[in-house]
């Protein structure tokens, strides 16, 4: 019996294994066209590659970033051209295969935390530019820690099965010339390399992106990535202009600051070509064109008195812990930073982002002089964060009261490793 299982697995593994692509000598950096390298640098920013392939204080693209998944921790790989620990021995074909099929040079399957299901839509020319860019980086010798996954996921051949079930088989999308070149560019980047849907869409049982519900909102790193479609909870229209400002500066004065995993995205986009960011803004303004705020921006009442009556404990906590920045008249408000009712978190159907921002605070996303918020994880208990969250929802939010907030806080703490 056991023998039979081993045999089946062996056959499966054999079937599942893709061929190895021969190692090459690291290409001479001087052999790449300079303009291609520059283009690749821009594409790498749009792809947000550095976020998963670098650790704070470490060399960029040298990997080691822990990525928490429901199945355990995966560490971002070293994508510098170091022949042993990076991708220095990878030919362009090996690189392109990894980006499109999620297979390493040695033929082993890559975990889908690496979003090849989206990156695969990238054109040959752009992949060549990315390759040129990566191959001209400094080769950094750095072995990322071993992944820590629940069994049997540590065994890579199972990923072949995952791909069979989860990888979409869509062909190229039909051009929509009537929407303009910028839109077209935005769709190309957004649906592919920028892989926005990877966070902003729900995932199925196998953690595969549910394509039919693309942009209906998803989860990333313990944060909720709100919908980018007609169900967008935003209370101010995401015009292309506002989205551009948001993606470029990490702050939309009609909405809020980029928080959580969106911070690094805006950090990179701020340094990407302006036109490409405009393209992304144009496209996603379009995907949200039917959203409620696009139809009419609601009046946003300040129900301070009502909320304080309903949640007196939350109101007191807010006055002592939050008002110094968030109450009208506070210096941050005088300076023109958006007030809490404008951000999506208080209008979402779950409290996760509100809770996460309270727990973790906010680092300035794009420039050092940007929005900053202290973390309250040690200051307030779960009950207290629940109380203040309920108060803010009642005061400025929309939608029904959030249920079981205390549990929501405990969950958020657990997920962010608090």
């Amino acid at each position: 019996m056991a023998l039979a299982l081993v045999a089946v697995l062996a056959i499966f593994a054999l079937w599942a294994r893709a061929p190895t692509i021969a190692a090459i000598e690291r290409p001479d950096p001087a052999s790449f066209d300079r303009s291609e390298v520059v283009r690749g640098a821009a594409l790498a920013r749009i792809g947000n590659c550095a976020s998963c392939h670098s650790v704070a204080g470490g060399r960029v693209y040298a990997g080691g970033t822990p990525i928490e998944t429901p199945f355990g921790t995966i560490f971002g790989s070293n994508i510098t051209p170091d022949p042993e620990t990076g991708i220095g021995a990878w030919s362009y074909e090996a690189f392109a295969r990894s980006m499109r099929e999620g297979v390493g040079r040695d033929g082993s399957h890559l975990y889908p935390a690496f979003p090849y299901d989206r990156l695969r839509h990238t054109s040959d020319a752009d992949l060549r530019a990315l390759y040129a860019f990566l191959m001209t980086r400094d080769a950094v010798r750095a072995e990322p820690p071993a992944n820590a996954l629940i069994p049997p996921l540590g065994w890579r051949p199972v990923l072949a099965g995952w791909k069979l079930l989860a990888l979409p088989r869509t062909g190229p999308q039909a051009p929509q010339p009537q929407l303009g070149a910028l839109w077209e560019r935005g769709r190309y980047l957004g649906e592919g390399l920028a892989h926005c849907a990877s966070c902003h869409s729900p995932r199925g049982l196998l953690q595969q992106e549910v394509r039919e519900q693309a942009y209906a909102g998803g989860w990333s790193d313990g944060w909720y990535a709100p919908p980018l479609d007609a169900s967008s909870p935003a209370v101010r229209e995401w015009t292309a202009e506002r989205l551009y400002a948001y993606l470029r500066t990490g702050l939309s004065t009609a909405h809020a600051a980029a928080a959580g995993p969106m911070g690094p995205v805006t950090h990179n986009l701020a340094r990407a070509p302006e036109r490409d960011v405009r393209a992304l803004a144009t496209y996603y303004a379009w995907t949200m064109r039917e959203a409620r705020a696009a139809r009419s921006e609601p009046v946003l009442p300040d129900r301070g008195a009502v909320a304080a009556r309903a949640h007196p404990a939350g109101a007191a906590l807010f006055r002592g812990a939050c008002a110094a920045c968030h109450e009208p008249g506070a210096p941050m408000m005088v300076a023109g930073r958006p007030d809490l009712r404008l951000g999506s978190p208080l209008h979402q159907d779950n409290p996760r982002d509100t809770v996460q921002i309270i727990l973790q605070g906010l680092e300035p996303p794009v420039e050092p002089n940007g929005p900053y918020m202290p973390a309250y994880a040690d200051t307030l208990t779960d009950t207290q964060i629940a109380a203040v969250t309920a108060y803010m929802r009642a005061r400025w939010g929309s939608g029904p009261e959030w249920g079981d907030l205390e549990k929501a806080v405990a969950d958020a703490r657990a997920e962010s490793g608090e």
Partner: protein
Amino acid sequence: MSGIARRDVLGGGGLVVLFALAGTGIAQEGGTSGGGEGTGAPPEVAPGLPGSLAEFPHLDAWIRIAPDGAATVFTGKAELGQGIGTALLQIAADELDLPLERVKLITADTGRTPDEGITSGSQSLQNSGTAIANAAANVRYLLAERAARLFGVAVDTLSTVNGFVRARDGRQASYGELAASLSLHVEARPDVRRKRVAARDHIGRDRPRRDIPPKLTGAAAYVHDMTMPGMLHARVIRGPAEGTRLTAPDFDAIARLPGIERVVRVGDFAAMLGPREWPLVQAMLAVGRMPWTRSEAPLPQGDLRDMIRALSTEPDVILMRDTVTLPSVRRVTARYDRPYLMHGAIGPSCAVALWQDGELTVWTHSQGVYPLRNALAELLDLPPERIRCIHREGAGCYGHNGADDVATDAALAARAVPGRPVKLMWTREQEHGWEPLGPAMVTELSAGVDANGRIAEWTHAVWSNTHSTRPSQAGDLLAGLEVGRGFAPSPPRAIPQPNGGGDRNAIPLYTLPRATITSMFVPQMPVRVSALRGLGAHMNVFAIESMIDELAAVAKSDPVEFRLRHLEDPRAIEVIRTLADRFGWARPKRERWRGQGFGFARYKNSGAYCAVAIEVRIEPETGATTVLRADAAVDAGETVSPDGLRNQIEGGIVQSISWTAHEEVRFDAARRTAFDWSSYPILRFDAVPLQMAVHVVDRPGQPFLGAGEASQGPAAAAFANAIARATGQRLRSMPLTAERVRLALAAR
């Protein structure tokens, strides 16, 4: 026996012999009080005397001996966190020959201490320290003279030990008994010798700072911590930033808020008072909701540095030299500049004031209690004698920040509630919004090297507003402009050489056969600025020392060797050699994206010599700079407290890296947009150097040289030079942020 060991033996309560009077005067000149930042320092009445004795020659202005023999020492300088409180005690105890515990120090207080102007310009030890040292030597001598008469022996047969004068036959008299029949209201004599260097107990030794344990354990150490019976707290009501005003302030609404006892108004000046702080903090939200407008002309858009460069100037050629030399074969021309910077004290400005029986007392962290008193006297229509300004520590100020303004705010508030002390503190956003900024500056340099690799010619022009708007009259105070009495600010003035303001340290110490150095003083002030630690030295040394590296590069010389080639001053040479040696300059670790940089200056060309070497590593993808090491060597003349000196130099380097790499005040048309630490970020722990060492070159017996501002310029330059070495890219415009480094690399 080594010098140190000998001092140890003598330090253990050993006898210190007295010398006959010296034939000559004492080294160390008096100086312009406060590095030229002050206004109207008292006249020199005894120009032959050293340090501030020249202005206050009487011994009892500096030292008094109690009947129990303990001494009280008075200084007109203030403890700003630079540690002078302990350093001055070390000097006094040493020269008096008293145990350290038996000496107590009274700092800047118009009721008690001499008027030593402003505590600035790294001059506290130079002026006050020198005065106290010599006054103490005089006192010790007078005590001995008195004893000599008592014992009927010659004075030079006597010695002193731990508060006693002792004769050879064993007779002794305590300072207390001797002082009882001695008037110290006599002028210091210039011919009294100080202790021999070898006999000193405290000078040159590390003595733990007296103020540290209480500060670290919660004693009420700062003006912020003062409490007095019946005291009211107060907040001032203004627009959000300098150059703005509230358009329709509803003071009645404020007065009705819970916990507000009253709103004080004098013209447009307004403050709210109450017994507890929290209601005031909440009421500030109501103030924040009030409409405001810009009261001055709108600020021009774009970089204000370019505006400073374009405004009309009052040029002053401060150095013109024209020696015939070889012609230049390679030239470098470059502009270097810096933005407006903030002092950014961690604790906002604060003062306590009490108006009682027609007299005013103000507890203030102002750097100049006497000048503040004069300005307040005009503002409040009081004779200066009826005002007493007492220095109490605040958070470190690094120059002229809101201290004087807040003291004025507190005084106006207190006048409305006679008999009740009022503590008025600015909010964080008021501190960020209203403090006078460190001026933006532009320098343009052009220099050439000859065929032998020597500098052949050098021009340097520096555009800057004034570097001191310290108060000398009512209109120099924020509230002075609000009270509606027509007070106007003093006209902006340049601080003349040799101290210099914008042109401080614009004259290099290097040998320059042909040179033109011009101070382009810009009188028109688009934003209110004043003294920031180091004044123009930060900018000028950054520019000069960057240019030196650029020239060394075209001359294909090592930067340190190139500097030494152009220096004659042996102390400058020694400081540079010491640092190069200890840092291992000649054996750099060669690695991609790693580089070391050097910077040197003698502060004000008259203060401490300081060299800084920095090694950085750059992350090319982000431009992020890691400072791997930052070392310094410093010669501050005779070192009173080696550890205190290191502390100052270390702090100066870290602060300078913050200025140079991270800081910039930005503006929109209405105001500065920095209102807190998120909009004006400064260096945090994750970006400070990984290692730092400061090497002290002690010069026992030499005059004290101020060092509090000595490392700012050299550190800035060393940082820029290290980045240039690591990346091949020269950045000339501060701040040298990661983004600028990244862009420079991307533009290659």
